[in-house]
């Protein structure tokens, strides 16, 4: 022990700011593995639940509405292209599935671990920091969302909705959607006092995501709504994923990707700061 610390009077300590930079290390990995091990035991029923609902939507709306709507015109780099409604819907709804799977995991499941089971408290008695735990939860929710998305993509391929080889590019973008919505959900997780709180999140934040061009083209909406929608994370994801389903490269790819990345960066930092504040006592 250095001499000066023994002789100097007790220093008055300033608690570090909750807004300090995230300090993520590889210690996040065992926390991720913990969630994976729990999920492996429940993977099959959870998978059925995760893909059954989006597929019902797809079949009911895609084939049901699709029969009424027929083809739909989508603006592209070479003018507008007519595509079957089911393709239009599938490319949008898979983004929504990525959003919802990540959101449920980072809200309800993370809250159970953090608040109800006190799993996080147990982990923090070991040499794992809160930053690593929050990061692990974020990666975990994104992974789970990717798993769901992959299963749905498999079904879509089997149904012959799209056979575009560019779907390989859509896959990492859908992972990005999972990351972004995990980060955003973790902000609300940090603020929640109980499960009821998440209702606000769903009605105030997730419902507007319907204005992201999933069920109908954004072009038919009023200009004001279109401008707002242009900044929604889900709308930007759809703008990237839909052309890939149509075997085309998206326009303004960089802009859409940057919007998504900005959501990830800001939301993760805010989520971490609020979680640090929650655990600081």
């Amino acid at each position, binding site marked *: *022990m250095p001499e000066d*610390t023994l002789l100097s*009077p*007790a*220093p*008055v*300590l300033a*608690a*570090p700011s909750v807004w300090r930079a995230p300090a993520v290390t590889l*210690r996040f990995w*065992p*926390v991720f*593995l*913990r969630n994976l*091990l*729990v999920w492996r*035991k429940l993977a099959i029923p959870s998978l059925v639940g995760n893909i059954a609902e989006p597929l019902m939507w797809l079949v009911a709306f895609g084939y049901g509405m699709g029969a009424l709507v027929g083809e739909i015109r989508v603006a592209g780099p070479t003018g507008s292209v007519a595509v079957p409604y089911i393709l239009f819907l599938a490319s949008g709804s898979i983004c929504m599935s990525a959003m919802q799977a990540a959101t449920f995991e980072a809200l309800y499941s993370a809250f159970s671990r953090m608040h109800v*089971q*006190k*799993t996080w*408290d*147990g*982990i*923090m*008695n*070991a*040499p*794992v*920091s809160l930053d690593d735990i929050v990061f692990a939860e974020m990666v975990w929710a994104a992974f789970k969302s990717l798993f769901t998305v992959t299963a749905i993509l498999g079904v879509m391929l089997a149904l012959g909705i799209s056979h575009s080889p560019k779907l390989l590019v859509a896959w990492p973008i859908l992972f990005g959607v999972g990351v972004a919505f995990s980060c955003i959900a973790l902000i609300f997780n940090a603020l929640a006092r109980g499960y009821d709180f998440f209702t606000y999140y769903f009605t105030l934040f997730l419902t507007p995501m319907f204005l992201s061009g999933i069920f109908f083209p954004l072009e038919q909406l009023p200009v004001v709504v279109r401008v707002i929608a242009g900044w929604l994370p889900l709308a930007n994801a759809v703008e990237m994923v839909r052309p890939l389903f149509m075997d085309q490269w998206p326009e303004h790819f960089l802009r859409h990707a940057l919007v998504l990345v900005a959501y990830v960066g800001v939301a993760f930092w805010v989520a971490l700061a609020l979680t640090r504040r929650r*655990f*600081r*006592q």
Partner: protein
Amino acid sequence: MTPPAPLPPLFEVRNLSKRYGDSEVVSDLSFAIAPGECLGVIGPNGAGKTTTIRMCLGLSVPDAGSIHAMGLRMQRDALAIKDQLGVVTQMDTLDPDFNCAENLLVYGRYFGMKDREIRARIPALLEFASLTHKAGAKPGELSGGMKRRLSLARALVNDPRLLLLDEPTTGLDPQARHLMWERLQLLLQQGKSILLTTHFMDEAERLCSRLLVLDHGRKIAEGRPRDLIAQHLEPDVVEVYGPGAAALAHGVLRQHAARVEVSGETVFFYTHNCASLMAGLQACPQLRTLHRPANLEDLFLKLTGRQIREDA
């Protein structure tokens, strides 16, 4: 008070203070734990025990003071310190989805241990916790005592030098409590150090080589259990209860006691002269008496008062 420890302390807290809003929860607290020692922290609810433990774990940042452990400094080296600590908190944080063996495996990974390394330790840890036959059971299927022992086994997965145990036997039946004590004594024999908070004075007396009495966030006494009793109390206590007992506090028998306390219908005589007191009490056969040596509970009540605490 206590002789200086022959070895440099394993864990040292200096002038620690913590306030929440207007109330000072921990105030200028200093203590040290020598290698192989069991230090007990006792105090009424709200005395600052759990806050102190949280600061020792780096989970709460003190307003002033310093914490050093194993040559490292808390906050700066929090993770490196926790690498060498084992923790059992008041509330179990066992994973309900995992069985006993999986709980140990998953927890060992948080210390950066290899799966092979942890799996090699699991049988001995389960054996230590008397849970070998329950390796495949989930916490929900375990009794309270089994859960606490699993928590203790989990805290040992990294072979820590120091254990921080926050009320490890609260809520257990006597059998489970005695088994826990036996295990903790075994750990002390193996050379582990322990910081223990407890509400059970017999537990403190049995396990702890030294005690710290906290009240309102301040240290009000420190020393070996026997020394503290000898220093603060008369050797014998006679409790008298029954109709009219309270009047004895002001009667002739008062002269045989150094100190008298009335609590409800019971009179407590603290005395150096129990023979004459007991002889005098023969005259009141309608009263029930209990004669016993002064113990840690008497000390605790003398130092912290008989008042029920607001948050108790």
